[in-house]
C-alpha cells in the first residue's frame, strides 16, 4: 500500500518537476541566445531534474511494484508484530520469499484472513485488482494514465521472457508424444472458435432490425476479426493459473501446448481479416492464400527458431574459456530469433519455443553448472516479473481507455466464447480419440475446455486495431476485457476446487530416480524392437531413428569434447549425482538428507555375500597384493589425468576452482555420494582413521564401507596418494578447515608430481562460509575403513570419467 502511494505521489511531482525544468531550460536558453544580459544567478547547489530520468525511473518503479507485489503474500504470512509489513526473519521465511519471487507458492500459514485469500484467489486475479487500484489512483490524482499496455512494449518486451522460459523448460517428451492432439486443438480448435464466435456475433448483431442500434454498423469481417482475436487461448494466463493447480502432466501439456501453438493461427487470421476489413470482401483466393500463409507462418517460425537454436548450440561449444558470458548467448540468440520471426510476420512465439527447445540439450551439455543455474534463475526472474507486470497493466489499462459498454455485445461474446470452447473441445476429442492410444476421458475434456483462458495477448491485439478502420474499436476492447476478466477471475478461481471435486489426477511430485530412467530407456528400446518385429514403422521406430541420427552426427557437431559421446543414461546419472551432492552441501552439510526416506541401506547391503575375510589374530594391517596395487595406482593416475584435462579450463578469472565445476565436481560428487551413503549407517564408531586417496575408484570406496573396520595402509603403493589422518571431528571443529587445505594440497601435490601445472590454488586464510559445508563432507568421507580387498570385487574398474 505504501508503494502505491509512493507511485501516485511521484507522478504529480514528476509532472511538476518537468514543468520546472522546462522553465529552467527556457531561462538558460534565453540567457545564451540573448547573450546581452547576463543575470548572475546563484549557482544551483541542488537541483531537481526529473525530466532527465523520467522514462527509466518510471519503468523501474513499475518493475519494483511488480516485484513487491510478489513479496506481499509471503509477508502476510509472517506473524504480525505490528501492523503492516513486518521484518522478514532470515531463514525459512526468507527462503519462501525467494521462492515466491521465482513464482513458486509457499504454503499458507492460516494466520489471518489475507493468507486464506491468497489461497483461494489465484495470483493473477490479485494482480489485476492491484492494477485496477493503481490505475484508479492515478486517475484520481488527475494524471494521465500512461499507455502501459502499448502493443509494442507488450510484444517486444513483456511477452518474450515468458515464452522463452516456457520454451526452454518445455518437457519435450510429453510434448512430442501428444503433438498431434495439441496441433488439432491449436489449429482446428482456434479456427472453429474464431469462425463460430465471429459468425454468430454477426448474426446476433443483425437481428432486431426494428430498433437500429450501433451494432448494425458491424460488418461481417470486423466480426470475424474480433472472433479471431478473442478466441485464442493465452499462454500467460494459462501458465499463471495452471501453475497453482498442479494437474497431471498430460492435461497441462495439452492446454499449455495449445496456447503456444495457436499463435500461428491467430497471427494469420488477424492479418488476413485486418487486411481485408478495409476492403470489405474476402474471396476464395484470399482464403486459399490464407491457408498457405498459415503454413508459411508456422513452419517458418519453427525454422527460424531452430536455426537460431543450432547457432546458439554451436556457439556454446566454444565457450569453455569464457564461462561468464554463456548465459548471454542463450538469451540473445533466443531474442533475436523472436525478433527475426516478427520481422517477417512469422509466428514469433513458435520461433522462440523452437529455439529454446532445440538448443537446450546441446547447450546444457556444453555450459558450466553455474551458467545453467544463471540461465534458469534469470529466466524465472524475468518471466515472473513480466507476468506480474502484464496483469497489473491489464488492470491499469482497464481503468484507462475509452470504454463503450454494450450489454448485448458483451454478454453475447462471453456466452459464445464459453459455448464455442466447450463444443470445440468435445467435438475435437471425439475425432482425436480415434487416433489416440490413451484416450481422453470426459474429465480430461472438461479440464481442457475449462482451462481455455484468454489474456493479455487478446487485449494487445485489440489495442493494435486502427480506430479509423474499426470505428467500434472501443466496444471491441470493452468486450475483450470483459472476456479476459471473466475467464481469469471466474474460471481461474473455480478451477482449483473443481479439480479437487472431480478428483482429477494431479502431478506426480516424485523425483526422477535412476531406476525410472533406466527403465524408460529400456522401454524405449523394447517398444522399438517390438515394433520392428511387428513390421510396421510406428512412433517408436522414427523416434529411435531420430535419436541415432542425433547421436551420430548432430551431437558431434554441437557438443564440445568428450561429452558428445556420452550416452543419455550416463549423462542422467552424472546429473543426478551432481544434484544430490549440491543438495547435500546446500542443506547445511547433511543435517537434512535430500532423499525422501532416511535409510540405513548402504552399498554393503547389496553386495553379494562373500566369505568373511579371515580375521587376522593380531589385527595386522593387511596389504594389497602387488598386482592390485599396480591396478589401483593406474586407476588413480588415469583418473587424475582426466580430471586435470577438464580443470585446465580454469584461468586467472576463476582463481579458486569451483568445486561444482566439471572434473573436480565429478570427484567431489562421488565423494559426496558416498558420504550420503555413510549417513545411512548409524554406527560411525566402527570407523578408524584411514588414509584416504584424493581420488578414489568406486571400488575402493565400496570396499571400505563394510562393517569390518581395519585400518588400511596404502602408503607403500602409491606415493601420490596422500595420507590424511582424521578423527570424528564435529562439523564445527577447526579440523574441518584444515582438511580442505590438505585435500587441496594433496591434489596439487599429485598434479605437481606429474608435472602438469594447474592453476588451482588452495584457499588461503579464512575460509569463505560457503566452503565450510564441503570440508564437513570431506572429513566424514575420510572416516572410512577398508576391510581389505574382496575377491570378486576388485576387477579392473577404471574410474568414471
Amino acid at each position, binding site marked *: 500500500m505504501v508503494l502505491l502511494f509512493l507511485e501516485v505521489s511521484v507522478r504529480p511531482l514528476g509532472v511538476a518537476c518537468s514543468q520546472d525544468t522546462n522553465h529552467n531550460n527556457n531561462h538558460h536558453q534565453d540567457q545564451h541566445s540573448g547573450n546581452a544580459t547576463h543575470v548572475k544567478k546563484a549557482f544551483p547547489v541542488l537541483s531537481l531534474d526529473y525530466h532527465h530520468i523520467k522514462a527509466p525511473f518510471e519503468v523501474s518503479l513499475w518493475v519494483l511494484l511488480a516485484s513487491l507485489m510478489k513479496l506481499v503474500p509471503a509477508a502476510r504470512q509472517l506473524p504480525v508484530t505490528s501492523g503492516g509489513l513486518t521484518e522478514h526473519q532470515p531463514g525459512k521465511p526468507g527462503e519462501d520469499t525467494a521462492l515466491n519471487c521465482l513464482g513458486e507458492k509457499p504454503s499458507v500459514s492460516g494466520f489471518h484472513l489475507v493468507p486464506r485469500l491468497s489461497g483461494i484467489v489465484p495470483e493473477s486475479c490479485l494482480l489485476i485488482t492491484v492494477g485496477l487500484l493503481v490505475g484508479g489512483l492515478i486517475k484520481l490524482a488527475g494524471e494521465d494514465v500512461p499507455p502501459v499496455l502499448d502493443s509494442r512494449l507488450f510484444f517486444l518486451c513483456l511477452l518474450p521472457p515468458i515464452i522463452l522460459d516456457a520454451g526452454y523448460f518445455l518437457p519435450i517428451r510429453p510434448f512430442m508424444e501428444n503433438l498431434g492432439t495439441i496441433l488439432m486443438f491449436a489449429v482446428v480448435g482456434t479456427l472453429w472458435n474464431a469462425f463460430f464466435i465471429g459468425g454468430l456475433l454477426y448474426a446476433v448483431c443483425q437481428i432486431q432490425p426494428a430498433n437500429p442500434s450501433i451494432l448494425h454498423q458491424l460488418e461481417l469481417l470486423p466480426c470475424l476479426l474480433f472472433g479471431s482475436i478473442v478466441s485464442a487461448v493465452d499462454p500467460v494466463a494459462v501458465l499463471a493459473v495452471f501453475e497453482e493447480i498442479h494437474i497431471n502432466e498430460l492435461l497441462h501439456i495439452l492446454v499449455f501446448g495449445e496456447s503456444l501453438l495457436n499463435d500461428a493461427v491467430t497471427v494469420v487470421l488477424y492479418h488476413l481479416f485486418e487486411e481485408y476489413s478495409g476492403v470489405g470482401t474476402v474471396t476464395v483466393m484470399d482464403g486459399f492464400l490464407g491457408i498457405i500463409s498459415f503454413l508459411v507462418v508456422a513452419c517458418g517460425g519453427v525454422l527460424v527458431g531452430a536455426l537460431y537454436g543450432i547457432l546458439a548450440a554451436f556457439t556454446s561449444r566454444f565457450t569453455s574459456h569464457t564461462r561468464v558470458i554463456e548465459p548471454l548467448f542463450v538469451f540473445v540468440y533466443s531474442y533475436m530469433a523472436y525478433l527475426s520471426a516478427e520481422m517477417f510476420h512469422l509466428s514469433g512465439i513458435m520461433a522462440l519455443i523452437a529455439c529454446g527447445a532445440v538448443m537446450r540439450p546441446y547447450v546444457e551439455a556444453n555450459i558450466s553448472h553455474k551458467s545453467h543455474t544463471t540461465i534458469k534463475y534469470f529466466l524465472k526472474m524475468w518471466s515472473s516479473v513480466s507476468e506480474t507486470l502484464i496483469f497489473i497493466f491489464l488492470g491499469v489499462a482497464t481503468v484507462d481507455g475509452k470504454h463503450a459498454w454494450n450489454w448485448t455485445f458483451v454478454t453475447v461474446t462471453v456466452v459464445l466464447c464459453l459455448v464455442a470452447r466447450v463444443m470445440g473441445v468435445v467435438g475435437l476429442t471425439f475425432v482425436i480419440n480415434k487416433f489416440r492410444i490413451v*484416450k481422453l476421458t470426459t474429465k480430461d475434456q472438461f479440464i481442457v475446455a475449462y482451462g481455455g483462458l484468454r489474456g493479455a495477448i487478446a487485449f494487445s491485439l485489440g489495442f493494435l486495431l486502427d480506430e479509423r478502420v474499426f470505428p467500434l474499436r472501443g466496444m471491441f476492447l470493452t468486450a475483450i476485457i470483459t472476456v479476459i476478466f471473466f475467464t481469469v477471475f471466474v474460471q481461474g478461481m473455480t478451477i482449483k476446487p473443481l479439480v479437487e471435486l472431480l478428483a482429477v489426477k494431479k502431478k506426480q511430485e516424485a523425483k526422477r530416480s535412476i531406476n525410472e530412467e533406466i527403465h524408460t530407456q529400456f522401454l524405449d528400446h523394447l517398444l522399438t524392437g517390438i515394433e520392428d518385429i511387428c513390421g510396421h514403422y510406428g512412433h517408436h521406430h522414427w523416434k529411435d531413428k531420430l535419436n541415432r541420427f542425433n547421436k551420430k552426427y548432430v551431437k558431434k557437431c554441437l557438443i564440445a569434447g568428450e561429452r558428445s559421446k556420452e550416452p543419455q543414461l550416463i549423462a542422467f546419472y552424472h546429473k543426478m549425482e551432481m544434484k544430490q551432492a549440491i543438495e547435500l552441501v546446500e542443506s547445511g552439510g547433511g543435517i537434512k538428507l535430500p532423499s525422501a526416506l532416511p*535409510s540405513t541401506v548402504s552399498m554393503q547391503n547389496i553386495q553379494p555375500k562373500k566369505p568373511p575375510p579371515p580375521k587376522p589374530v593380531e589385527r595386522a594391517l593387511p596389504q594389497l597384493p602387488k598386482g592390485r596395487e599396480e591396478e589401483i595406482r593406474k586407476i588413480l593416475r588415469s583418473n587424475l589425468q582426466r580430471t586435470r584435462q577438464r580443470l585446465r579450463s580454469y584461468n586467472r578469472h576463476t582463481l579458486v576452482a569451483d568445486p561444482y565445476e566439471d572434473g573436480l565436481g565429478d570427484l567431489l560428487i562421488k565423494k559426496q555420494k558416498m558420504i550420503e551413503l555413510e549417513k545411512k549407517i548409524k554406527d560411525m564408531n566402527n570407523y578408524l582413521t584411514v588414509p584416504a586417496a584424493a581420488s578414489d575408484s568406486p571400488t575402493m570406496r565400496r570396499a571400505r564401507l563394510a562393517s569390518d573396520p581395519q585400518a588400511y595402509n596404502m602408503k607403500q603403493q602409491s606415493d601420490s596418494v596422500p595420507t590424511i589422518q582424521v578423527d570424528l571431528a564435529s562439523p564445527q571443529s577447526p579440523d574441518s578447515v584444515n582438511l580442505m587445505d590438505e585435500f587441496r594440497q594433496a591434489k596439487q601435490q599429485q598434479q605437481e608430481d606429474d608435472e602438469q601445472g594447474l592453476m588451482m590454488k588452495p584457499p588461503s586464510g579464512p575460509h569463505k562460509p560457503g566452503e565450510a559445508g564441503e570440508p564437513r563432507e570431506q572429513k566424514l568421507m575420510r572416516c572410512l575403513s577398508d576391510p581389505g580387498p574382496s575377491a570378486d570385487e576388485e576387477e579392473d574398474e577404471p574410474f568414471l570419467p
Partner: protein
Amino acid sequence: MGASQTHSEYQYLADKTGFSLEQIKNLHKRFQQLSGNEDTISKENLDSIPALANNPIRKQIIDAFFDKRNQHQEEVGSFEEIGFEQFLMVMSHFRPPTLKTTEEEKEALRKEKLRFLFNMHDTDNDGVITLEEYRKVVEELLSKSGAIGQEAAKAIADAAMLEVASTNVPHMAPDDFYEGITFEHFEQILKGLEMESRMHIRFLDVDTTTMRCGKSTS
C-alpha cells in the same frame, strides 16, 4: 486350412488375447513373413530382422518371445520354436488400455506388463533380480556406447540397486544382505511410470504389412 477354420481359430485367439480379428489377421501375415510360411519361428528368424540389428537389447527381446513364463501357463524354461499362438500371447502384453477399461482392469494390466519386464530381467527365474542380473541389464543398455558405457554401467547399476533397497527396505542393519529386487519391490519403484499407459504399441487394424515386406526377412 479352410477359411472358416482359420476364422474360428482367430476367434479363439481373439478371445484369449484380446486382439481384434483384423489385428490378428495382420499379425498372422507378419508371422508368415517371419517364419517363411512355416508354422513356427525360431530365434534365428527373429534375429535376422535387419531393423533389430541396432537395438542394444535385442537378445533380451528375442529371448522374451521364447520364454515360457510369458505364456501365463505356469511353466518355466524356454521354447526352441514358437507357434502363432505363443507369438500372439507375447504380443498381447503390449496392448493399450481402452476407454472402457476399469480401474481394476488397469491395475491388472499394469501388473501383467511389469511382470513381463521382470521376467526379462530375471533370467535365472529365481524370483528376484540380483545385482548381477541388474548389472547385465544396464550393461546391455549401454552396450552400443563403447568403453565409456561399460565403465559406467556398473556404477549405475549399483546406484540403482541401492535406490531400490533404500526405498523398499529402509532400515537394514549393516550386516543384512539385500538379496535382490522382488516383484513387489519392482512394482514399487516403477509405480511412477504408469506402465499401463506407456508400454504399448499401436497394433494396426489396417493391413500395411504388405507395403513393408521388402524390408523384412526373406
